[in-house]
């Protein structure tokens, strides 16, 4: 994982260095990495993503289909040994948490191969996060500034939760709006079509009926009433 907190050059000698190291460890542990992407998956296509993970890492894959067809997609996740650890077909949205047992490259793929003409817009969020290690005893050395730092980190994590929640609602709203627009279009077209059919059929009926009685000699009177 990139961007690990480095060791700060000790200001204040050994004691400062130890404190800095402990805090750095804490910050790395709490910081969860992750990627969220929205992409378009054409019909009969498959798109795979890969990530290298350490052993014992916890990751969560959330995905959701936003637009397209029946709003469903196939998804599978494979571990570095090629074993399928998750497989679902025609799912609209799902969340898959997992703790890795093997170190290596994990693959997850979205497949729209069952669809012949509807391309889908898929959103996924791949969060990688560790549990914090056993915290070193810092209580007797915290200064005001260090408490502010950890407060900042806590607020940052809380805001990330808010943003996640917002994203969740945004996606559901996008999906619902997509359906509503589909519905509106369908209602408009079908109403016009139905009205035309109504006119054509009823006038046609009358014309047809009249034509039954005008082919023969006029006034034949053979038809029963």
């Amino acid at each position, binding site marked *: 994982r990139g961007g*690990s907190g480095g060791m700060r050059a000790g200001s204040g000698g050994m004691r400062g260095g130890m404190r800095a190291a402990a805090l750095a460890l804490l910050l790395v542990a709490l910081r969860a990495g992750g990627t969220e992407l929205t992409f378009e998956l054409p019909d009969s296509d498959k798109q795979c993503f890969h990530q290298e993970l350490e052993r014992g890492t916890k990751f969560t894959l959330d995905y959701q289909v936003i637009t397209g067809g029946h709003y469903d997609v196939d998804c599978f996740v494979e571990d570095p040994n090629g074993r399928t650890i998750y497989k679902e077909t025609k799912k609209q949205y799902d969340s898959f948490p997992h703790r890795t047992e093997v170190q290596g490259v994990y693959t997850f793929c979205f497949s729209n191969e069952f669809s012949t003409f509807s391309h889908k817009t898929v959103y996924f969020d791949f969060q990688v996060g560790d549990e914090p290690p056993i915290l070193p005893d810092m209580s007797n050395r915290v200064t005001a*500034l260090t408490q502010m*730092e950890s407060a*900042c980190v806590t607020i940052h994590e809380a805001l990330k939760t808010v943003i996640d929640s*917002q994203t969740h609602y945004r996606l559901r*709203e996008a999906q619902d*709006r997509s359906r*509503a627009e589909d*519905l509106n279009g369908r209602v408009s077209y079908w*109403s016009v079509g139905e009205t035309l059919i109504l006119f054509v059929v009823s006038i046609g009926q009358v014309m047809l009926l009249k034509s039954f009685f005008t082919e023969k000699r006029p006034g034949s009177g053979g038809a029963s009433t």
Partner: protein
Amino acid sequence: LALYFHSGEREEKCIIEDVPTDTLVIGNYKVQRWDIHKQEFLESAPGLGMFVTVTTPSAEVLLSKLYGPQGTFSFTSHLSGEHIICLQSNSTRFVAFGGSKLRIHLDIRVGEHFLDESVVQAKDKVNEVNFRLEHLIEQVHHISKEQNYEREREEKFRKTSEETNSNILWWAIVQTLILISIGIWQIKSLRDFFISKKLV
């Protein structure tokens, strides 16, 4: 850079980002090319670059630049909506050779700068807290913008639903009236027809 995916040499891969207006979007990427001889991905391929194209919801191009094998691109949205970020390599090799593909590492951040822990650690205490606080303020502003954008979209959604509702109602009334009047016309027309044919 953690997540990666594969792409053909001349293939264009696009990512969709739905963002509110005045939002900073930063992307970080790294691209590697598959070497047929060594049967592995080269760490750095000289001369390999990526065209990054960003299209706004109104189909105008916001950014179109050629970057190297590794790079950072950013743009600020003027409109709210779906922006499309496309990556395509500048490779001029013939695809016919086959077996050649690219590995693209990608990370995109919306509304906030990347928080590089090592950079933060390098600053002294007061500046570090200052830096973190600025980042937090950025995050909060982004949340606020997203909420405003959500309000816009919900209104559009509600309008669409209400339009559908009144559409259905209006068409139902119109069709019923047409049905009744055509029914009456049919019977009258046939009655007059049969009377004129002296069948009734």
